[in-house]
């Protein structure tokens, strides 16, 4: 087996086709995770009676176990639950009709939700309490104060963490190969094993991921500049 530098380019072109799948997984899990995260964070901040310990347990469990176990648990556990319920209530829906990528979406969203809730929580806590009191004092309702005063500032405070989470989920999406979804990593495996050139194929995959990560970082830097406009000191 000899190193074949020109194959890196060939592999690169072949793997490019799998980028959308990786991006779908990332975007779906980050967006769904963000929504879960906001709900969980609000439950924990406002200490909603019964839900509060449940939310804390969810976050602890997800953060304490590897993402791979979440994926495997969902992959093997969800069909049992769905088919059990379907048999009981006579639904026509069966777990077989869930596409493989659906499991990845569900599992990664649950994972992202726990991490996002911490990001959202720290962002919300970073906003000074006085701000919401000031908003109340000029007659805003709590939802108004949250939406107009707290959220914009919390977003600015948590943007670096948010970007890290997106990158984390992008990298985490490589696990989708365990449930036979052909993302960048799985494509690299296919290209590698059909051509028997492992090093070149994985190098190409690594370069693609590196590029994607770099793009996310640049994009965040741009957004951060815009979002922090109100924060610049001085006049003008």
């Amino acid at each position, binding site marked *: 087996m000899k190193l074949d530098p020109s194959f890196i380019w060939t592999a690169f072109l072949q793997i490019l086709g799998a980028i959308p799948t990786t991006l779908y997984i990332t975007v779906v899990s980050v967006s769904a995770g963000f929504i879960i995260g906001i709900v969980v964070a609000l439950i924990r901040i406002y200490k909603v009676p019964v839900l509060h310990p449940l939310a804390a347990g969810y976050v602890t469990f997800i953060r*304490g176990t590897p993402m791979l176990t979440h994926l495997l648990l969902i992959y093997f556990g969800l069909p049992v639950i769905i088919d059990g319920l379907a048999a009981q209530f006579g639904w026509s829906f069966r777990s077989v009709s869930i596409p493989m990528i659906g499991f990845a979406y569900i599992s990664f969203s649950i994972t992202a939700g726990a991490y996002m809730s911490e990001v959202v929580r720290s962002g919300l806590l970073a906003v000074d309490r006085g701000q919401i009191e000031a908003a109340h004092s000029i007659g805003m309702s709590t939802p108004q104060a949250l939406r107009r005063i707290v959220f914009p500032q919390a977003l600015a405070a948590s943007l670096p963490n948010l970007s890290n989470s997106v990158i984390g989920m992008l990298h985490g999406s490589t696990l989708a190969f365990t449930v036979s979804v052909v993302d960048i990593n799985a494509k690299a495996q296919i290209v590698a094993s059909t051509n028997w050139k492992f090093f070149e194929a994985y190098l190409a995959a690594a370069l693609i991921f590196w590029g994607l990560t770099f793009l996310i970082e640049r994009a965040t830097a741009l957004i951060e500049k815009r979002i922090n406009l109100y924060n610049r000191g001085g006049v003008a």
Partner: protein
Amino acid sequence: MGAPFDLGFVFSFLPKLLTTLSTTLLIVACSLLAGILVGFIIALPRLYKVPVLKTLAEVYISFFRGTPILIQLFLFYYGLPEVLKLVHVDMTRTPVLVFVILTYGLHTGAFMSEMIRAAVTAVDKGQVEAAYATGMTSYQAFTRIVLPQALGIAIPVFSNLVIALLKDTSLAFTLGVMEMTGKAQTLGSVTQHFIETYIALALIYLVISLCIEKLLLVAERRLLQHEAQGSPVKRRFSLQKKSSYRRIIAELDSGKGGGTI
């Protein structure tokens, strides 16, 4: 898909999985040591702004933080023997575990170096100047003044890195290492009780990460005991420190914690 759910299997799988716990912990311990060493070496050129080495270190960190650990695993496992073959070193008989530890070591090294750099730069420069003013050498100033403070600042981040590393080891099974996840998959396919095995697996990981968190929390308290609350002067001091913590934790905390594998 498999046999019906039976909670009893979760408990019977626990001891079976625990037999491979030593492999998982071995990977964590070895890569941690390697990571601290690499991290220190990589952090130095950036702290002292050594011209060419600084750029190299930045590329290294960018690569290891910018690509998934799974890709790095495959890259080293398949790539290193081929590269070393060019200089006539034969790696065909090297155990897989060596590649796994090497990859995790280099991966954590990148994060460690960021942690070390952030912690050292977070210590007020005036402290070093004060140490010089009292006649300490730069070695003394580092070991007596900077290091104790930097350790206290770094330890929450360190704790996160260790837990992240523990969770990352679940990927070693892809190269055929029989650590806990690999064992769980084998158990699952032998008995067809997949859900029960993975629940047992998740429980073990959860308990270990909680233990690590608690242990390092104790270490953190010990390291920070000199930051005692008490007289108002000291108190103001500790408040100032707190803000630097928050900055670092915000910067680095989810650098690894943010959706890690």
